[in-house]
C-alpha cells in the first residue's frame, strides 16, 4: 500500500481516470447522446491536470491533460456517430480479445529484447529472429505433423540466429546495431529463399497442425461479468496464455533470482561484474540466445497460431514495435507488457475503425511509434536504458 500515489499525484491520476471516463460516456454500454457530457467531463479532467501541473506534479499532470483531451475528442466523436456503427465498432469483449491477440507476438519479442538489452547487447535483429521463428515453426509443423515440435523447431531457429548475433557482437565485438541490421537482412533472405524453394507459389499447406485455442466455456456461467469474461478470455490461443505466463516468469528471473542479478550487472557495469567473478561473455551469450528463442516464439505464434501459414516478410515491422514497447516500458517486464497491450489495443481499434474509414485506421498504426518517440524525447518521464548497452566488453 505504501506504493500508492499520494497528494497531488493521486489527484492527477484521478484526473487521468476522469479523462478516460469522458471517452467512455458516449460509447456503449453507457451511450450518452448529448455532447455536453464528454465535453464537461473532459474539461474537468484537463482542469485537474493543469491544477496538479501547477502544484508541481508535472508528469502525471500532463497525462491527465492528455487524457482529458483524448476523452473530449473520442467522446464527442461518439456522440456524432450513429448508434448502429458505434455498436458495431465498440464491442468491448471482442476489442479486448483482439488486443490480446495483437499484443502476444509483441510481448514475446519484447521480453526477448529485455533479456538481450538488460545484458548490454542491443538487439535490433528481433524482427529477423521473429521471421525465422515464423518460418521454421511452419516448416517444422509441416514436416513433423505436430505443432508442438514445430514450435520447438521455430524457437531453435530463432536461438541459432541469435547465436550468430551473439558471436559477432560479443566475441568479435562488432558493432551491435550493424549486426542486428545484418540479421534482419539475412533472415528476410533465408526465409524467403527457403519458402520459395520448398513451397513455391502454392504457399504453405492449408492442413498444418496449428497451435490450439484454450476453451474456457465455464467463464460464461459466472454471474454478472460472465459474458464479458467469456468474450475476452473464452477462446484464446494457447500461446497467448504462454505470453502472459512469460511476463511473470521474466519478472521473477530478472529481479528475483541470482541469474537475473548477473544479467543486470553485466548490462550495467560489466567490469565490476567481471571483477566479482561473473563470466560476462557467457551471460551475454545466454541472454542474447534467450532473446532469439523468445522472439521466435512470437513469430511462431503469428504463423502457427494467428494466420495459420507463412508469407514472405510476414512480421512486417512487429519486431520494431516490440523494440519500441521495450523502450516505452522502460526495460521492465510489466512496463513492456503494458506497452504491448497499449500497442495491441491501438491495432485492434485500427481494425475496428475500418468501419468508419480505412484511411484513418491506417493512421492509427503509427501511434506506437509516435508514443515511443515522445517517450524517448523525455517529454513525459525519460526512458533510461541499461548503462553498458551497445558497448562490447573487452576482458582485461
Amino acid at each position, binding site marked *: 500500500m505504501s506504493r500508492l500515489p499520494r497528494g497531488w499525484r493521486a489527484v492527477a491520476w484521478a484526473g487521468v481516470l476522469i479523462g478516460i471516463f469522458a471517452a467512455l460516456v458516449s460509447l456503449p454500454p453507457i451511450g450518452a447522446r448529448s455532447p455536453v457530457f464528454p465535453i464537461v467531463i473532459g474539461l474537468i479532467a484537463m482542469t485537474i491536470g493543469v491544477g496538479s501541473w501547477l502544484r508541481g506534479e508535472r508528469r502525471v499532470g500532463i497525462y491527465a491533460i492528455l487524457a482529458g483531451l483524448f476523452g473530449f475528442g473520442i467522446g464527442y466523436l461518439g456522440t456524432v456517430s450513429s448508434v448502429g456503427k458505434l455498436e458495431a465498432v465498440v464491442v468491448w469483449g471482442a476489442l479486448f480479445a483482439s488486443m490480446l491477440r495483437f499484443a502476444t507476438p509483441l510481448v514475446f519479442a519484447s521480453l526477448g529484447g529485455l533479456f538481450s538489452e538488460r545484458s548490454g547487447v*542491443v538487439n535490433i535483429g528481433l524482427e529477423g529472429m521473429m521471421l525465422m521463428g515464423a518460418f521454421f515453426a511452419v516448416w517444422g509443423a509441416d514436416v513433423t505433423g505436430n505443432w508442438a515440435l514445430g514450435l520447438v523447431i521455430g524457437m531453435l531457429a530463432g536461438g541459432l540466429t541469435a547465436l550468430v548475433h551473439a558471436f*559477432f557482437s560479443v566475441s568479435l565485438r562488432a558493432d551491435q546495431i550493424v549486426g542486428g*541490421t545484418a*540479421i534482419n537482412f539475412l533472415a528476410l533472405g533465408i526465409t524467403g529463399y527457403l519458402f520459395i524453394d520448398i513451397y513455391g507459389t502454392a504457399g504453405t499447406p492449408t492442413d498444418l497442425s496449428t497451435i490450439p485455442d484454450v476453451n474456457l466455456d465455464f467463464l460464461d456461467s459466472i454471474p454478472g461479468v460472465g459474458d464479458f469474461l467469456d468474450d475476452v478470455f473464452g477462446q484464446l490461443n494457447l500461446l497467448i496464455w504462454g505470453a502472459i505466463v512469460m511476463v511473470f516468469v521474466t519478472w521473477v528471473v530478472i529481479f528475483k533470482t541470482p541469474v537475473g542479478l548477473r544479467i543486470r550487472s553485466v548490462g550495467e557495469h560489466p567490469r565490476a561484474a567481471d571483477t566479482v567473478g561473473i563470466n560476462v561473455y557467457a551471460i551475454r551469450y545466454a541472454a542474447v540466445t534467450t532473446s532469439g528463442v523468445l522472439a521466435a516464439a512470437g513469430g511462431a505464434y503469428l504463423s502457427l497460431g494467428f494466420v495459420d501459414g507463412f508469407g514472405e516478410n510476414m512480421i512486417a515491422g512487429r519486431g520494431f514495435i516490440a*523494440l519500441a514497447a521495450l523502450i516505452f516500458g*522502460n526495460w521492465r517486464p510489466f512496463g513492456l507488457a503494458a506497452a504491448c497491450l497499449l500497442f495491441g489495443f491501438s491495432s485492434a481499434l485500427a481494425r475496428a475503425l475500418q468501419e468508419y474509414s480505412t484511411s484513418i485506421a*491506417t493512421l492509427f*498504426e503509427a501511434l506506437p511509434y509516435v508514443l515511443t518517440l515522445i517517450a524517448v524525447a523525455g517529454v513525459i518521464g525519460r526512458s533510461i536504458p541499461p548503462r553498458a548497452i551497445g558497448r562490447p566488453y573487452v576482458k582485461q
Partner: protein
Amino acid sequence: VSGASPEPPLLEEQHREESLAARYGLLQRAGGIVAPLLTVVLAFLAGGVVVLITTGSLVKPFETYEAVFKGAGLNWFLPWEMCRDCPAALNLQQTLLIWTTLTLTGLAVAFAFRCGLFNIGGNGQYLIGSIAAVLVAGELTKAIDLPSVPLILLAVVVAMLAGGALAGIAGILKATVGAHEVITTIMLNWIVLWTGSYLFGVGGPFQSDVQASLPVSNDIAEKAKLSVWWGDPILQGLHIGFFVALGALVVYWMTLNRTTLGYEVRAVGHNPEAARYGGISVARNYFLAMAISGMFAGLAGALDVLGWKFRLDLTDIQASTVGFVGIAVALLGRNTAVGVGLAALLFASLQTGTSTRNLDPSIFPPELASNLTLIIQGLIILFVGADLIVLLALRRFRRRSVGSAAT
C-alpha cells in the same frame, strides 16, 4: 524512474562516445581496399554455396553469377559488347537508375557516420522525400502553374528539406536530451511509412483521382519528369538524376574535406569530448550532420519520383528497403566518396541482375535469386561489421611476432 543519480564518469565511459566513428576511422586507414574486397568475395562464395546446395550442380553457381552479371548489364563494359540499344545497354540503364538511389541513401548513412551517428532512418527520409516530390510535382501543379524547370527545382528542394527536417528531429533529440539516434530514426521511419500509407491509401486525401480503388497517388505532371539522356523514356531509360548523384559524391567529399563544417563534423565524429574542448559545438554538429544526411536521402526520393516512378503506390511505401541497403553501401564503401560510389554499383548490380525482369529464368529462378541478394547483402553487412576486429587481431598478432623476434 531510478538510476539517474549523477556519478563520476568511468574510464570505459570516456571511450564510449568516440567508439563508433573512431573505429570506422581506424578501419579506413587500416584495411584499405583489401578488407572490403575480401568481405565481398566471402559473401559471394557463401551465396555460391547456397546455389550449389539448392541445385546440386557444380557449374550452376558460376552460370548463375554470369547470368546476374549479364542481367545487370555489366557486360556492356566489355569492349566487344558495347552498343547503344542492345539488351546490355537496357540492363545497365536499370542498374544505374538503382545506383543513383543507392549512392544517395549510402551518402545519407555515411555522412552521419563521419559525425559518429548511425542514421538508420534513410528509409523514412527517402520516403518523405518521395512524398514531398509527389505532392509538389503532382498535387501542387493543380493549383499553381509553374514552368518545367522551376517546378522540378521546387520539388527537389522541398523533398530535400523534408528529408533534412525528419533527420534533423533525430539530430535535435540526440543533441538536447541525448535520445539515441538509432531508436529515434527507427521510430520516424515507421511514422512516415504509415503517414504515407494514409495519404495515398484507398480513401486517403491524396489518393489517385482516376483509379479510386487502387492505393496509388496521382501521376506527377508531364513537365515535372526528368529528361532521359540514355535509352528510351518509355522503357525507363536513364534520367539526368544520374549526374546529380555523381555531383552529390563530389559535394560529399568537398564538404567533409574542404570546409569548416566538414572539419567540425569529423572532429565530433572522432571524439566529441575533444571537439568540445576545442570549442566546437557538438550539439550543432549533431543536428547539422543528421539534417545533411536526411537531405541526401530526401534527394534520392525526389529523383526516383521525378525520374522513373512518377507516382507512389502502397507497395513502394511499405516494401522499400533502400535506406537499409544504404547502410550496407556506406559500411562497405568505408564512408568515402569513391567507396560509396563503388559499393552502390555492386549492390545496384546485384539488385537489377537478380530481378524478375532481368535474370534469365532458365538459368536460375529470379524469385530465389532476389532472396539470394538479400542473403549476400546481409552477409556483407555482417562481415564488414566484424572485419575491424580481424584487422586488429592481425595487427596485434604481427606486433607480437615482431616483438618476440626482437627479444
